[in-house]
């Protein structure tokens, strides 16, 4: 109600203000139109990809055929367009891969750590009982033995569990389904291990929930839960055949992966590229429809990424993985078995890879829309990038308030006290 009322108030006719607004709008529109014309003039002769200058109006998404998309660094561009262009130098779903991309270097990892049992709350960390229940991956595709590990510790010291009752259950859209499967945890070193054969859930695609009731002190119990995702053999939608080949295409590296499609549909395929020494270079993906008749799916590693990485080939293709996406269903993913190992490509000279920025019909349309908005006088607000103290924040300031940089930092404050302000 408040917002609607405010809108009505702001829409009341105020002749002078309205006239001023109209004049400002008209001026902005004229300036914007002139600006757009200037940009088109300045960029129509911009450097193109290895394919040489192409027709200005050709709507080809081919990265090697650069389109008259304005280039970054053009002082005449509105900051919003400048930033948009800077953020879209590489194609969607791809980029530089570094050792810091832990989730890409090690896909399908788990992230559980020890966490406190709330009922043992204490200011003295040595009195807090912590628990960790985990396994070695999130997705299990086909028949596997899932090794579940449970550990307790008091402070940093491992302690025994007085009892563990656990079971695994299928989970569907509305919750648990079917009978639970009992699990037996046995001591192994400082941990307790239980093994669960996913064949016990041969008819189930999706999450399996492990519930464990742990007696961590006499008559004191804690409930811990863990989920993993199981894909039975019968629901594997496609498999990589193991065939891998490569080609240089329009200044980019194309990797062809052999595939045997059992279930047609929309797929996502991911892969990483490393150099011969194992240094990560790029990640990329392919998304689209696959038919049973398809034998190859191609993942492209964009030339500009390889150019920027400046690491010579031959390369290694690894972490090849994929799934069929079932939009609107639950669960909505049918994973494929990963393609194991690394696969060598041929060697290409670095200058074979194009340094042209990514272009596409969509990117052109986005720039056109943003320039239109600038010409219409619509503000192209964007948040300024945050920067650590002592550095300069990038990006245009907006009408926003500054960050709360002056809050008292509690050096050395115990973790418990952080966030209690």
């Amino acid at each position, binding site marked *: 109600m408040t917002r609607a009322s405010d809108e009505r108030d702001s829409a009341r006719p105020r002749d002078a203000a309205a006239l001023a607004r109209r004049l400002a709008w008209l001026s902005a529109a004229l300036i914007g139109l002139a600006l757009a014309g200037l940009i088109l003039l300045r960029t129509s002769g911009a450097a193109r990809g290895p394919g040489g200058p192409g027709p200005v109006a050709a709507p080809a998404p081919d990265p090697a055929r650069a389109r008259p998309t304005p280039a970054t660094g053009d002082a005449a561009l509105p900051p919003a367009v400048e930033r948009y262009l800077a953020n879209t130098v590489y194609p969607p779903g791809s980029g530089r891969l570094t050792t810091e991309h832990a989730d890409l270097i090690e896909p399908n990892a788990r992230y559980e750590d020890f966490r406190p049992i709330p009922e043992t709350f204490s200011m003295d960390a040595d009195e807090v009982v912590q628990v960790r229940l985990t396994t070695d991956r999130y997705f299990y595709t086909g028949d596997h033995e899932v090794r579940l590990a449970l550990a307790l510790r008091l402070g940093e010291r491992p302690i025994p569990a007085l009892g563990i009752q656990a079971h695994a259950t299928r989970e569907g859209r509305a919750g648990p389904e079917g009978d639970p499967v009992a699990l037996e945890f046995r001591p192994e070193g400082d941990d307790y291990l239980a093994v669960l054969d996913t064949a016990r859930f041969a008819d189930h695609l999706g999450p399996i929930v492990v519930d464990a009731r742990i007696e961590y002190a006499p008559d004191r119990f804690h409930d811990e839960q863990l989920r993993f995702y199981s894909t039975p053999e019968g629901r594997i939608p496609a498999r990589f055949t193991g065939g891998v080949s490569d080609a240089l295409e329009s200044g980019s590296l194309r990797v062809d992966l052999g595939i045997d499609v059992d279930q047609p549909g929309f797929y996502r395929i991911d892969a990483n590229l490393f150099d011969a020494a194992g240094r990560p270079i790029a990640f990329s993906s392919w998304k689209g429809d696959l038919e049973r008749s398809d034998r190859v799916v191609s993942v492209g590693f964009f030339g500009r990424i390889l150019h920027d990485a400046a690491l010579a080939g031959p390369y290694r293709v690894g972490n090849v993985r994929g799934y069929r996406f079932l939009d609107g269903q639950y669960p909505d993913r049918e994973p494929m078995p990963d393609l194991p190992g690394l696969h060598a490509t041929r060697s290409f000279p670095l200058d074979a890879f194009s340094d042209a920025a990514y272009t596409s019909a969509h990117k052109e349309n986005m720039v056109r829309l943003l320039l239109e908005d600038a010409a219409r006088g619509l503000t192209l607000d964007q948040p300024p990038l945050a920067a650590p103290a002592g550095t300069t924040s990038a990006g245009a300031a907006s009408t926003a308030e500054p960050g709360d940089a002056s809050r008292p930092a509690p050096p050395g404050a115990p973790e418990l006290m952080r*966030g209690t302000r």
Partner: protein
Amino acid sequence: MRNGRRLVRHVAWLAITIAAFWGGAAMAGVGGDDAGTCVNACGGYGAGNNGNSCYCDASCTSYGDCCADYQPVCNANTGCSPNSGSRYILHVGGMCSQGWNTTLASKAGYTSIDVKAVQTNHSGLSDASHTLGLYLDQCCTGSNLCYVINYSGGDAVMGHRFANSGTNWNVNWVGTSAGAGGGSALSGNFLADIFGPCDYSGHLGRSEVRNAYNHNDTNGETVYHIGGYDGWWYTSWLLPGEDDGAVAYHSAGAVSAVTSTSSLCTTPKWTNHHAAWTCTGYDLDHYGMKTKFIQNMGW
């Protein structure tokens, strides 16, 4: 001495429990209990746990018992005009919600849209992502242009949609407040159930969310993140580093590693994700962070 320590512990635990219930009620204010969804249920009774007994048939409008996502999912009615040169700001709410359901952005020349994506069931991420896709297809293609504002679980919903679509939408950028895309250590235990009294709250564990989609594929869009540090003491105790009571900074700051950090600028981040305005964050709890991005933009 030992009995005294035990008494302190019991009192503290009682406080934790009471405070958690109180905090949970506040969190639930944006949505609440499990709610039905029309995803895969048009023409009948709502799918999911459907604790609100909602319907997806034509007569639900006259009975007033339609599921929140009935119009977009069953009638393709998102409130947007496709390819009309329109400018939209989409709002995607958080876990246990059926929409944004509170103050929307007000920006001259733009129309704000409350994305009615149900995130309350075990299937919350899949359902909400599908519904968001319907909005993006109508609102953000052709001659239309969008901004997207996410909150909490909406971060994961948007990321899931980005990673699983072949469509490039006309989204200038995405703003995320208190994003749960990195998952929360609170999920999966009973405190998470108290925080967000819906089944979906148990699905925001770090392993689940981080494996739910490729966080480095934003479909070419840039995602800006802000976070709060006014965590409630009873949950801050359970979360690593700085936090707002529900998500820690590794999640709110889109840090690709699960790490204890007091800076939203901690790297490495997922590709195309950036901290905005401040590395130190805001003196707000998770609930207070909801509209912070909109406020910062002056919308």
